[in-house]
């Protein structure tokens, strides 16, 4: 490869421009194994230990500030845990937005994590693999690969065998609470598209109408407390299944700095304690910023759980000079290939001539190397962008992914409330209320009082409760405006199904209440805005100022952006 070709290749795709890990489910990562190797191996060892001793309470704590590679570690664990002979499950969670129903939240998030494709080549979710492992362990006569091939084709292959499995398999060796879960996995998950959708919806704890699953699994009559109890039971069952097939489940918690209220802390404490002490074959890993960890401890988390986390504590310590040089080389080689590297017109070490002596975070390494590379490529000095321009660019990238994400994006009702609250109030009151789906604006001057109710639980009893609270509010606020917001993908069944719910909806609308059903695309935009908010809050979105310094985009900029993109969204 000639000199000019190398320049053109690097100008077209600068391998040093991006420092963030991005989406850990995206396997297109350029990473260096030597960085943060100790914490990586430490958690991998716990993962193996959980497979051998599923009853042992295991947990890990990873502390590191922004730019130290936490998200990269998560992506590496995901790849490592989902490949090889003893691959297992992986889920990545962020803290709950509110403090209510923590186990429903935990079940939903883990279920969504297990929906992701397993490994790089499978094309099937971890749920499918779990079903295959179960059938292999139950000795149903087929190997894992053959079972997975059948499932890819919706059980159209090996029809007689599948019929035999459905009739014969009873899972007597499993604990009773795990048998329902096992049957859903084995009988409906591998089925037709509608059976699969229904099974996945049921697995995440929702109460949609059941067309394929047995009536006894119908949750539409459960109270919130009953659903919470069932979620706990399903999680225990899930752990039992993983233990039964000899595979572990890694559950990572990132963005812990989003914990702000006592209710969120209490919910998070419950969740982590449950995973450590009760759920078999499961390893929770908490990733937190170093300074923030002390705040978590002071929030009086369960002392035993904190002890378990601290017993496998790892601090991210950046990279030494040699590692920094390797990282830069690796990134260049990913773009240029080995022949391109031979034709490179500069020594990669030159890119780090301004790197301070000693250890540096990967972010600093890549930022400095990128600045130097731009000089060597004679690229114009970066026109200083404004934080708002940066946000616009990031948003455009997110919106371009809309079609792809529309297909698989699970319902995330808390995001809707999060974004609405941010739009109305700014950052000050986000997350402070117990019920994040109840958003009130008092009357001012000629403006009436407003109430937005964002539905967070796709369950008839929860809907009735919410709508009746809205009706009561209307009585106390004559002239006030109530809007009930929900993701339109959650369809309220028509009469004669859910009769009580339909009656309350009708009464609500007759009294002047507004129903705002977000189309899937519109709902997804709200979800993406919520993701953008999280990224800004965590300091992950940065812009380059006129002195080529990386600065984080602030919340004030996000709110300005939100108000320009969001106005009109709250209308019907």
């Amino acid at each position, binding site marked *: 490869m000639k000199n000019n070709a190398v320049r053109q290749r690097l100008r077209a795709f600068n391998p040093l421009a991006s420092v963030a890990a991005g989406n850990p489910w995206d396997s297109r990562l350029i990473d260096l194994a030597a960085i943060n190797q100790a914490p990586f191996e430490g958690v991998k060892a716990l993962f193996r230990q959980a497979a051998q001793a599923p009853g042992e309470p295991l947990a890990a704590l990873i502390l590191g500030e922004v730019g130290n590679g936490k998200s990269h570690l998560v992506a590496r664990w995901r790849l490592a845990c989902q490949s090889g002979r003893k691959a297992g499950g992986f889920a990545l969670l962020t803290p709950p937005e509110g403090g209510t129903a923590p186990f429903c939240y935990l079940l939903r998030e883990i279920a969504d994590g297990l929906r992701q494709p397993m490994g790089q080549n499978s094309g099937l979710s971890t749920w499918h693999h779990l079903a295959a492992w179960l059938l292999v362990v139950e000795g149903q006569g087929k190997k894992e690969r053959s079972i997975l091939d059948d499932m890819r084709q919706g059980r159209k292959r090996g029809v007689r065998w599948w019929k035999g499995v459905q009739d014969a398999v009873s899972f007597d060796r499993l604990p009773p609470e795990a048998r329902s879960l096992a049957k859903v996995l084995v009988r409906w998950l591998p089925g037709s598209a509608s059976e699969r959708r229904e099974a996945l919806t049921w697995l995440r704890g929702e109460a949609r109408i059941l067309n394929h699953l047995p009536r006894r699994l119908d949750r539409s009559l459960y109270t919130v407390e009953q659903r919470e109890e069932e979620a706990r039971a399903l999680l225990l069952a899930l752990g039992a299944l993983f233990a039964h097939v000899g595979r572990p489940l890694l559950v990572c918690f990132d963005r812990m700095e989003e914990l702000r209220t006592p209710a969120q802390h209490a919910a998070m404490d419950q969740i982590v304690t449950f995973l450590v002490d009760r759920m078999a074959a499961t390893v929770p890993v908490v990733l937190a910023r170093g*300074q923030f960890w*002390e705040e978590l401890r002071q929030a009086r988390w369960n002392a035993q759980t904190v002890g378990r986390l601290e017993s496998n504590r790892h601090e991210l310590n*950046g990279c030494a000079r040699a590692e920094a040089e390797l990282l830069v080389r690796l990134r260049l080689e990913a773009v240029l290939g080995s022949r391109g590297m031979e034709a490179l017109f500069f020594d990669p070490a030159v890119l780090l001539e301004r790197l*301070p002596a000693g250890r540096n975070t990967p972010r600093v390494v890549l930022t400095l190397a990128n600045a130097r590379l731009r000089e060597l490529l004679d690229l114009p000095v970066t026109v200083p962008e404004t934080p708002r321009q940066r946000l616009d660019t990031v948003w455009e990238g997110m919106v371009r992914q809309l079609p792809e994400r529309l297909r698989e994006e699970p319902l995330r009702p808390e995001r809707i409330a999060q974004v609405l609250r941010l739009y109305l109030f700014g950052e000050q009151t986000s997350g402070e209320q117990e019920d994040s789906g109840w958003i009130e604006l008092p009357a001012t001057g000629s403006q009436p009082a407003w109430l937005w109710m964002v539905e967070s639980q796709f369950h008839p009893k929860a809907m009735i409760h919410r709508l009746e609270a809205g009706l009561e509010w209307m009585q106390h606020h004559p002239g006030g405006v109530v809007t009930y917001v929900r993701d339109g993908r959650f369809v309220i069944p028509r009469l004669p199904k859910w009769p009580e719910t339909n009656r309350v909806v009708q009464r609500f609308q007759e009294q002047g209440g507004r129903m705002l059903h977000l189309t899937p695309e519109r709902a997804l935009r709200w979800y993406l805005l919520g993701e953008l908010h999280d990224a800004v809050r965590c*300091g992950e979105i940065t812009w380059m100022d006129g002195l080529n*310094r*990386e600065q*984080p985009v602030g919340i004030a900029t996000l709110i300005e952006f939100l108000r320009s993109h969001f106005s009109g969204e709250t209308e019907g």
Partner: protein
Amino acid sequence: MSELAGLIEARLRNKQKLFVSRTEFFKLLGSGLCRTLGVTPKDSVVRLGAALQSHCGDRVRVVQGGRAFYVTLNVPDDAYLRDKAQRLTSPFTPAQLVLNLPLSKVRAASALTRILASGELICIGVRSDFIPLLSWQGQTEPKSVEEDAQAFQRAFNEIGQGRNFVAIHRLRAHLGWERDRFDRILRELQAEERILLNMGDPTRLSRVELENGFVDRNGMRYLTLNWLGFGR
């Protein structure tokens, strides 16, 4: 006279004190020296003062500070403030500095003024009630890098209280060093791989706290640091 004075001076210096209260003085002396001095704990301040004058001259005296009486070595007023400033944790207020010293308000104010003018004591900020915050700078002779590194680590441990991630602005305030001196020791410790500088989360800090982070020669701003090899 000189022997008793020397004994009293030695006992005070062993306790690393320039002065003690009346009660502490009698405990410090013990019954034997009290008999030599010819005083008892029940004697009046005037009697004690006369006895000290008689046996120690001006080397040890009784002085009133506020409402209390103290037995003190004969040192300049500035010495009391210097001694106390080095014991206090920065930053501190002028009131905290002069509290319980064997000085009248007027003399304390004069001494404080002199020390501020000398640069040994500096004002590093103002509280929200506009009370100035002071920090001891010490002698102006340059410390060695290793001395500074040790002082830095002590400050890190004091602020961290067992934690390994500390905000740089807090260290800067605690040490009260000139900017160049503080920044130099950060660079040295980083070069020796004793610390890792982190960019931190700027969204949680005030403007002043952000400015009191560390900006390196490339313009990169760091807000926290952790000690490498901590706890191992």
